[in-house]
């Protein structure tokens, strides 16, 4: 598996299958360069490492800009186009509000915590 600078990647057991759990190194995901690099690493996870069952854990994320949301949308499309599933978890209330305002809580499968996300696989 490729080395990642912006992501913490681990393989864990879901209810029925193995799942890739991804955490974020940056607490604030907002500057363009970081978001570009982050996006490339997330896409690499799907396209090169062939991970199809992915949980994104936002427990360490304090801040997310709309550009970062854009990368998540593109990631979600890539995962689905490869026949996989993507779930998000541990999103703090002020960031969840951003998903709700933009109605992206309808697009993404968002779980309260990592265990709930793993149980959903």
């Amino acid at each position, binding site marked *: 598996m490729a080395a990642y600078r912006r992501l913490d990647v681990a393989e864990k057991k879901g209810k029925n299958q193995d799942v890739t759990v991804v955490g974020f190194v940056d607490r604030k995901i*907002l*500057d*363009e*360069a970081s978001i570009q690099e982050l996006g490339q690493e997330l896409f690499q996870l799907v396209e090169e490492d062939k991970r199809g069952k992915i949980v994104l854990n936002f427990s360490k994320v304090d*801040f997310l*800009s*709309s*550009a970062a*949301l*854009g*990368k998540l*949308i*593109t990631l*979600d*499309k890539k995962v689905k186009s490869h026949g996989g599933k993507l779930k998000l978890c541990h999103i703090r209330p*002020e960031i969840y509000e*951003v998903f709700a*305002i*933009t*109605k*992206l809580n*309808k*697009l993404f499968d968002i779980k309260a915590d990592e265990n709930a996300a793993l149980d959903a696989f």
Partner: protein
Amino acid sequence: MSESSWTWRTEQVIPSETGAGKRVLDDLLVQLEAHNWAEYDIHGIHLALEEALVNAIRHGNRSDISKNVHVACKLSPEQLWVQIRDEGAGFNPEEVPDCTDPENLEIPSGRGIMLMRAFMSKVEYNDRGNCVVMEKHRASGAA
């Protein structure tokens, strides 16, 4: 509000490079924390200003390094006032597609203005569309 009511103000001219607004944003966040604004309000203001700065740089000035973004902030115990002006041709904010429309939900961009309006008490563009004024009233929620 009378000019004497403002306890802090700043004006900066920044180049059209994303990340160039970090210093003015950091300065403002320090002031908000020093004035004991609520964490929720600080988060919303941070997001709104980040979106507005990126819009000015990337869309307003089309990331043209020869163009600048003019940022002015004024802070009182009860209110924040911010003006962000780019040197571009402007646009009509009414023509920005509704990002919450189901047919637009999967488009990666186009959410900045909605987030600005959600977290600030007031967001107004000039007629040309190259200048936005945002206000946050400490006592009330977003407009």
